[in-house]
């Protein structure tokens, strides 16, 4: 049996000392595998991804990501994880190229990679336009390029195909899809699509894991 890339045991996250955003969540993700996280709005999916990215401190349980015990060893995580959340993490008054160059410098990535990725996500023609002038789908393509810029071993994807038309979704497949071969934790409302591309599924309802026979959207 392989060592897991990511393990979560009995994770608890509480907001304002009252709201249990996550309550007893456990998952295990092996290298190269894909885990889908399903649930309705407010189920705790985004909170889980933020904990795994090291952006949110867990309040209970054990979280180990790429060998780093969180939150104690959070300092080991930066640069190891690719995170594509609801926010694109791009500056609206910089162009796509300027944004990617900025992130490349922070991650110590060669600038040639920026040009290559802009081509891969089909943003070459609009690479020098300010992000605020781009459509949501274009911004999402740039955000995907930003997430994989440093070639991370683990991708945490929150609705990665939101705002994408089928052609754009196909374009991103080699970067963030099954074809990428990367280990992924995938949050999605597209139950069918997520089930088709995942090796395991975590179902959440109001922060608690539930079985496959229970209705997530009740």
């Amino acid at each position, binding site marked *: 049996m392989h060592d897991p890339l990511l393990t979560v045991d009995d994770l608890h996250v509480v907001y304002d000392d009252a709201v249990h955003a996550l309550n007893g969540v456990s998952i295990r993700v092996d290298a190269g595998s894909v885990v889908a996280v399903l649930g309705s709005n407010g189920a705790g999916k985004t909170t889980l991804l933020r904990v795994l*990215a*090291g*952006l*949110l*401190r867990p309040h209970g349980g054990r979280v180990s990501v790429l060998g780093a015990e969180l939150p104690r060893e959070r300092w080991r995580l*930066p*640069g190891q*994880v690719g*995170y594509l*959340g609801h*926010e*694109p*993490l*791009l*500056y*609206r*008054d*910089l162009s796509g190229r*300027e944004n990617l160059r*900025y*992130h490349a*410098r*922070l*991650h*110590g990535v060669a600038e040639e990679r920026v040009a290559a990725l802009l081509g891969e996500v089909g943003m070459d023609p609009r690479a020098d336009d*300010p992000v605020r002038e781009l459509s949501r789908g274009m911004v999402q393509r740039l955000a995907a390029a*930003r997430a994989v810029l440093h070639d991370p071993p683990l991708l945490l994807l929150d609705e990665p195909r939101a705002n994408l038309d089928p052609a754009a979704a196909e374009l991103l497949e080699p970067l963030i899809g099954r074809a990428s071969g990367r280990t992924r934790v995938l949050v999605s409302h597209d139950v069918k699509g997520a089930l088709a591309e995942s090796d395991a599924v975590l179902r959440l309802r109001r922060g608690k894991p539930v079985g496959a026979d229970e209705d997530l959207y009740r």
Partner: protein
Amino acid sequence: MIGPAGTILRKDLLLEWRTKESVPAMTLFSITVYVLFHFGLDRNSLDGELAAGVLWVTLLLAAVIGVTRLFATEREQGGIDALLLAPVDRTALFVAKASALFLFLVAVELVAVPAFGLMLLGPSLGGALPELPLILLLGDLGIAAVGALVSALAAETRIRELIVPLLLLPMLVPLLICCAQATEPLLRPDQGPEDLGRWLGLLTLYDVVFVLVSVAVFDFLLED
């Protein structure tokens, strides 16, 4: 640390160049306050203690605008998350933000101080040279160190426009005293430095202490 700090600083300067959100607002605010003092005090010219007080209080209030905006873009556009995901020492972020604020203040003073000289000052501003620029630079360094710290703290809250002046201005009182006392003899009719070494020494001490304190606690401010 220098590489990432330079990268973040370049980005901040580019964003300011494009959006013009801070420096023009700070400059216009300073000039407006000088105009208000001109009419409010009903005097054609000021000198000595009053001139030094008006100069520095106005610059400090203008700094509040810059401090309020310093982390706003990061919070509004996810820059903090991006920085936490990147292998960047948080001290680099502090250095970049404090440097950006320092440069914003210098840019504001390049316009606001001559405007003060023209609109309010009795004695010639030329007589305050070369000491006044040195006092301004040391003052800016202290404001930048404390301002970056307060801005990071306030960025976490929804009422940062209230938190920034409430935290920043009391922390800047010692700096205000040193700057005003060092400047006052330079703005008298019989211009010339007086006790300058003592006030510059205290100002330098303030700067060193707050740079060190800010670097020490900055890491904890960005925790969720």
